[in-house]
Structures are given as C-alpha cells and as structure tokens.
C-alpha cells in the first residue's frame, strides 16, 4: 500500500518518547522523489511516520548524524553517522490524528518519510474552526492551520527578535481570522481587541478594524478612557504621584462620597445606594474632589471658639481656583490653622497639575465621558463598551502610541480592567465573551508585563491568562523579549509561535515552556528566516516549522526596516526641522506646521489626466 520509496530506515532503540533510527542505504543521496515531489531526507524538524498495524505513529526529527546514535553504539566499531533521533508526538488511526501516543514502536519497525497526503491527514482537510497561518517549510504545498478554539482559550504567545516578522505574523493571523483576503467571512462575530503600542497596525488592518487613538486622524475615533471607571487606588496613585496608604484614605472617602452624591442626580441600572463601594464605576467630578479636599487643607478659623471660617473668597472647581482664607497668625487671636487637616497639600497640588496637563486629557477629561460637577456625564459606560467592542468590524485597535510612557502601564492595566470586569460580570449575557469570545492582542508585552515591582497591567493579565478562559477572554502576548515578560503569564500560554530569536536568555525562556524531548526543535530559533516560525502547543497539531503567509504590500504593518542603502543613495532633499519640532511638540507624528486647508480633487490615471 505504501510505496517503498518513502522508507527512511529502521527503529533500533526506543527510550521513552525518543526513537533512534538507523537510516537505510536507499536514502544515502539525501533526496527522495515521491509522486513527482522532491523531499529532503533527514531534515531536523521534519516529520516521520512509523506504521504499526492499523496505527501510524508520527514523530519529529530532532537529531541527525552520529550524535543521534544510542550511547552504547557511539564508541563501538558499528558507529556511523547514519542515525536519526526522532521524538514521538502523536498517532493516527485511520484519518483521525491525535496528540500523544498509546503504544511504542518495536525494534526493526520501518520508519517512513511523511508525504503530503500524510500531512493532510494530520492537519485535516476541514476548515472548520481552523485558520490558515502559513505553509510548512519542508513541504510548501501543505497549508498550516491552527485551531482557533485552542488558540484563544489556552492563550498564545508570539515571540521573536526585532525584524523577525512578529507584527506581520500577527497582522496575517488577524486578517485570516477576519477573512479579509479570502473574500468570505468565516467568522462574522469575531471580536479582537489589539493594544497597539507603536501605532503599527492601523494601516495594515484599516479595512477590517476600528481604530481608537489620541488625536485621531481621519477615519479614526478619539480614544478616551474615563478616569472614573478605572481602579481608584491606581488612579489616586497616579494623580498624586505616590501616596501613603493612610493619606490615600482621605481620597477614597471623598471619592465614595462623591459617587454616592452622583447617584442622587442620575440613577444607573444595577447600582444600589446601599451597596455602592469605591470600586463601583459611577461618574464623579475630579475637580470637585480637588476643591473639597483642598478646602479642608487651606481652611483657617477665627473667633473665640476657633470655629468661624475666616473665608475671604470662594474657590471654583471648574477653573481649579483654590478658596482664599485669611492667612493664619501665630498669636492667640488667630486666625488659626485647621488642626484636622490630613496634610495632603502636596498630593493635591499634584492632582491639580495633572488635571491641567493636556497630555492626560484622554483620561482626566475624557470628552463626552467627563462628568460635570454633579457627577453627571453626557455618555456612560455602555457607550464606551459598545464603541470598543460592539462596532461593525471584527477588530478594534487601541492605538496607544500617543500616550506618555509614565502612564502606559497604568493605562493598559485600566483598559484591561474595564474590559475584564465588564465581561466577568456579563458572563451570562449574549453580549458577554462566552457567547462572543474576545481575543486580546498585547503588542510589545515586555514593556508592561515585566516581573518585579507593583504593576497593575501585569496583575490584570495574570488574572486573564489564569481565569479568562472561563469567561471567553483569550490573550495573545507579542514580545521580542520573552525573558522580560512575567513567568506566570508566559507559562500560562498554551501555544507558542516562535520566530527568529537569537538572544540565549530569550531562547531559553521559550525552550523552558516545551516538553523536554522537543527542546532541540527550538535550537533552530536563531537560524529561522524572516517570517518563519516554529509553532508548538495546543493550537498546533504538531510542533512545526512553517512560513507565515505575508499579507499583501498594502496590508503590512508599518514597522518594516528602513532601507538604509537605498535611502542614503537618494539625492538630498531640502529639509526643514521646524516640521520635526512641531511634531515633537505636538506629540504627534502627523502634526503640520501650517494649518492650510487644501481642497482635494479626485484624479485618475489616463491620457486625459485630470478628471473634474
């Protein structure tokens, strides 16, 4: 039934899941031609098949040559280089392939090359629940598909050095999930949230995504994150620039008080006055928080009982003007300082300057979500969530490139918290993520998911990777520095897409996630080509080396390497660095020097040129 040309050799020794194979003479040439296709024999990382009656065992070649010989033979006269070490990974009965093996091969069993029909058996012909990501490096005719269910519920990590093709891989994967290039849309309800730290993806995915960005460009939406929805302890920490717990208490008390008061102006379904806590996401005014706290600090008293306020002028919350009191005097006549003041003047000063800082507008003055002094905002959280998660496209890109790096970690923590809390509590609703699962793609994860000190983003992602599965939230961690990403997070990832990685520490952190017998596969990491990846884990049927399908030119993320030689060879253009500085000052790469309004006319190619 099997053509004998596929024969590679015979089993000589079996240890655990490792099989030593003695290569037969017929493959001395290193090439095998089967049905017109040429196969290279004994490539590390390629597959072999060991037929056992009705069953076929499948394995991956991990070593070839004299090192692959069993220890006992190595020094003896029998020694030769015609050995191959194979790691068993799965078995197939009929056309049904499964990971894991139920029996071991015997000595002298035949070992065969895996041909395209065999691979199709492994990868299955059905498209259901699978998404194509690329083609096998060893057999380009075979499409590599990965299991979406496992990819999402068991989380995954895309790792590779800069320039190895990470962003392109992610873009390609997301495009094929969204069915952008195939013309059909297999998953119309797909829901993906991408945290784009460098603003690389908005062009690549423009046709299938909604982009939220600070200082939005045409076709994008303004990114706002209402401060009142994020974790109060985090917020207070950021606003005050660090505060001791006992002093933070004054802030918390005031926040709760203001939230409670806000309920008397507007009712929010699901919120009960009696059960309101500081964490309940109800709008309140930060400006009032500031005014009411600073008032207590500045207050002076006069009169015989020291109980009359020595007020000179009222403060104003809107313009952040502090109230004016008579300055206190030392003598026995007063005015006297408020002895009950908690002493948080410095922190309040910080809060005021944060409120005035334009860079934090997206958070502290979040457009329509900014509450008035009574704590009533024009828009509420449902509007925010439906804008982020309920729009027409499958992908939402939160472009965080305009965000000051001091707040990046906190902000990502807050975004994730808003999303996670919403889905945690809506788990029994059809809008929830169990009914419409969510894939969270986190770019440049090492920047905000590192171990070490207090880090709200990391804590949140740890929670997501540990329990997100139950609520339909999956995480995709993308990083060039896996060794800097928190261990707990990486170890919870079930699928790894490892692109070229040369740093030994990074490599060992990827290797550490694999079962022992497959670590040799990862020794190939430094020599992978750009856009080539080793995919291992739950979503992949077998550990495999594959070439990622690149999206078309216009759909590549704009993180491609600058073409140094080509650009340096150009004649010099006139330059004007005031444009550079304008961009820097505006903190926007697309800032203009002159605000000219230019009317654009549609054009088309052709001999007539202009079309009016």
């Amino acid at each position, binding site marked *: 039934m099997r053509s004998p040309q596929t024969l590679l050799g015979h089993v000589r020794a079996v240890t655990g899941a490792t099989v030593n194979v003695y290569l037969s003479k017929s493959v001395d040439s290193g090439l095998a031609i089967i049905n017109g296709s040429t196969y290279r024999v004994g490539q590390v990382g390629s597959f072999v098949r060991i037929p056992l009656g009705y069953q076929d065992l499948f394995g991956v070649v991990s070593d070839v040559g004299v090192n692959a010989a069993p220890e006992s033979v190595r020094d003896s006269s029998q020694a030769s280089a015609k050995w191959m070490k194979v790691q068993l990974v799965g078995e197939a009965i009929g056309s049904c392939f499964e990971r894991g093996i139920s029996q071991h091969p015997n000595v002298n069993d035949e070992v065969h090359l895996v041909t395209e029909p065999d691979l199709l058996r492994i990868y299955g012909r059905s498209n259901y629940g699978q998404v194509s990501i690329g083609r096998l490096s060893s057999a380009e005719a075979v499409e590599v598909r990965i299991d979406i269910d496992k990819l999402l519920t068991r989380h995954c990590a895309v790792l590779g050095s800069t320039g190895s093709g990470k962003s392109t891989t992610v873009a390609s994967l997301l495009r094929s999930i969204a069915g952008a290039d195939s013309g059909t849309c297999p998953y119309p309800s797909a829901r993906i949230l991408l945290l784009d730290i460098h603003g690389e993806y908005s*062009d690549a995915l*423009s046709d299938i995504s909604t982009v939220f960005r600070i200082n939005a460009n*045409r*076709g994008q939406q303004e990114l706002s994150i209402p401060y009142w929805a994020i974790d109060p302890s985090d917020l207070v920490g950021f606003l005050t620039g660090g505060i001791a717990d006992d002093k933070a208490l004054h802030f918390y008390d005031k926040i709760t008080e203001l939230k409670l008061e806000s309920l008397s102006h507007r009712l929010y379904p699901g919120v009960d006055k009696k059960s309101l806590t500081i964490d309940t996401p109800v709008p309140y005014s930060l400006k009032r928080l500031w005014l009411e706290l600073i008032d207590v600090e500045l207050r002076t008293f006069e009169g015989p009982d020291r109980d009359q306020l020595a007020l000179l002028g009222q403060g104003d919350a809107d313009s952040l003007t502090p109230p004016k009191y008579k300055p206190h005097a030392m003598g026995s006549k007063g005015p006297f300082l408020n002895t009950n003041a908690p002493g948080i003047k410095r922190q309040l000063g910080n809060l005021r300057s944060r409120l005035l800082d334009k860079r934090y507008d997206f958070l502290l003055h979040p457009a329509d979500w900014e509450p008035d002094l009574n704590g009533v905002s024009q828009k509420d959280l449902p509007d925010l969530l439906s804008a982020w998660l309920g729009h027409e496209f499958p992908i939402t890109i939160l472009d965080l490139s305009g965000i000051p790096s001091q707040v990046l970690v906190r902000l990502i923590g807050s975004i994730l918290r808003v999303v996670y809390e919403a889905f945690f509590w809506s788990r029994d609703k059809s809008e929830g993520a169990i009914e419409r699962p969510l894939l969270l793609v986190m770019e440049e994860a090492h920047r905000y998911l590192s171990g070490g000190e207090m880090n709200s983003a990391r804590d949140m992602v740890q929670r997501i990777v540990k329990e997100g599965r139950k609520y339909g939230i999956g995480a995709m961690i993308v990083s060039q520095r896996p060794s800097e990403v928190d261990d707990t997070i990486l170890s919870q990832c079930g699928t790894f897409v490892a692109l070229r990685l040369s740093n030994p520490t990074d490599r060992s952190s990827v290797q550490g996630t694999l079962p022992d017998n497959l670590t040799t596969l990862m020794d190939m990491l430094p020599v992978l080509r750009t856009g080539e990846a080793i995919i291992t884990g739950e979503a992949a049927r077998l550990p495999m080396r594959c070439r990622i399908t690149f999206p078309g*030119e*216009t759909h590549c993320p704009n993180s491609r390497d600058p073409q140094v030689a080509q650009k340096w060879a*150009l*004649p010099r*253009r*006139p*330059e*004007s660095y005031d*444009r550079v500085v304008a*961009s820097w000052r505006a903190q926007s*790469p*697309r800032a*203009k020097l*002159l605000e*000219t309004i*230019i*009317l*654009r*006319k*549609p*054009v*088309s*190619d*052709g*001999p007539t*040129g*202009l079309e009016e």
Partner: protein
Amino acid sequence: MDRQLVSSSNIVAVGYDPASETLEVEFQNGSVYQYYNVGQSTYDEFMAAPSKGKFLAYQIKNCFPYSRV
C-alpha cells in the same frame, strides 16, 4: 520598483496650495501626505502626467520633503 508600479493606481485625490507650495495627496488606503516646496510647474506636470502614481514616485516622492498628515 514593483511597489512603485503598484502605487500607480493608488492615488485617489490631489490638492495644491500655490501660496505655500504644498501638494496634498490622498491615497487609496486613506492616508494623506503633504509634499512641500512643490512648484506650480511641477504640479501642472503632475496633473498632466498619464500615470499619476509613477510621476509621484519618480518625480516627487524622492525629491521633495514630505510629511504624513
């Protein structure tokens, strides 16, 4: 080179401000670029060119300062 050929059908709309010598080009994918110091004559040639994309790639892109806006 291939990329530049692809871009020949890529331009959707073009605008020009003679006062500041600014040429504004809108591409198919929604991005808008401004090219500076582009003289009126270059602009006229551009508008008369049979292939706008090619003209832009060869005569404008690598010769004039630009900024994405």
